[in-house]
């Protein structure tokens, strides 16, 4: 299969300034609040045209096993989406016939451990964060999705847009019936 389709992450390791750190931290919190509020119209505006949104499925493997489960984009993944594909997923919610989304799910995305670093590219920043997403549905269904993210955000006018996101969910078996959620 295609070998060059891997998720490359620029690394310089240089921490961003206080102002940049503040601005990007506020940005990922704002993004989380939009997802909590199901404000997908607002959320899509935060995504860059050349978005890569990737959440690989991770099998339990012995340490000696060198299979690259994270970067190989040809393996099974919960999400391996560009902007158009994200929009397709979202368009399901606009049809008015996504019965299982009605009544609505209650969400809270907790974003923490936010670190901002410079990248080789001017105007692009690497943002590390941890997420703890809580869902509560119907009467008593609940679950927690916990993991970390590595993002690339790009300056776009006075704001930032998400260019790349790699999500590592800390589940082997997804302990829920679906992922009606973005992380």
């Amino acid at each position: 299969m295609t070998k060059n389709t891997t998720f490359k992450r620029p690394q310089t390791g240089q921490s961003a300034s206080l102002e940049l750190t503040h601005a990007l931290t506020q940005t990922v919190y704002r993004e989380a609040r939009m997802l909590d509020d199901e404000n997908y119209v607002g959320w899509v505006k935060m995504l860059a045209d050349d978005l890569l949104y990737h959440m690989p499925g991770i099998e339990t493997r012995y340490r000696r096993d060198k299979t690259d489960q994270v970067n190989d984009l040809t393996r099974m993944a919960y999400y391996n989406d560009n902007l158009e594909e994200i929009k397709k997923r979202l368009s399901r919610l606009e049809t008015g016939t996504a019965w299982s989304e009605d009544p609505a799910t209650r969400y809270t995305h907790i974003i923490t451990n936010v670190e901002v670093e410079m990248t080789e590219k001017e105007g692009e920043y690497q943002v590390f964060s941890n997420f703890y997403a809580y869902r509560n549905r119907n009467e008593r269904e609940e679950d927690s999705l916990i993991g970390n993210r590595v993002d690339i955000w790009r300056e776009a006018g006075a704001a930032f847009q998400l260019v790349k996101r790699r999500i590592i969910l800390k589940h082997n078996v997804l302990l829920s019936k679906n992922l009606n959620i973005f992380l």
Partner: protein
Amino acid sequence: MLEMNPAPVLVEDMIALTQRLYHEARLLDAERFEDWLELLCDDVTYRMDLKRRRFRADRSPPAAVGAGVVFNENFARLKLRIDRLRSGYVWAEDPPNFVRRVISNVEIEPADAENEVIVHSVIVIHRNRIDGLARQFTAGRTDRWRHGTQGWCLAARDIALDHAVLPDSNINVFF
């Protein structure tokens, strides 16, 4: 293009308020309720409303004015709740439960009043109770904080609880 609120919020304010939220959480974890009251404005409002579980198309008004309120407190009522907790008769809190608050997603916006800001945050409350009974609440909060001579005080807090059925036998905690 992304519409972001361009109104600048000072990094200093951001840090001060984030610190204030963490400090507040630490006071509550330690049951330093009187110190916590010091952080509240005299005209504080403190509310938690139940989210309604209705179909999306349901535009009906709430069942009654104030329906679905879990907390609708002012300063005096909060003090009254603390009086109860201090009475020495609240057996459910003795021995004390282990309570830890996690505060995150602190996000600040300008408010209408010049000396006020809106602060969004998320709170998780872990309660470890008798015999390994561990319970957890998650909620979103929208606060109004006011800057006065004593620094920042909490003027209003709206709490949106994520649970349809309260997953514990009481809410002897403040969010």
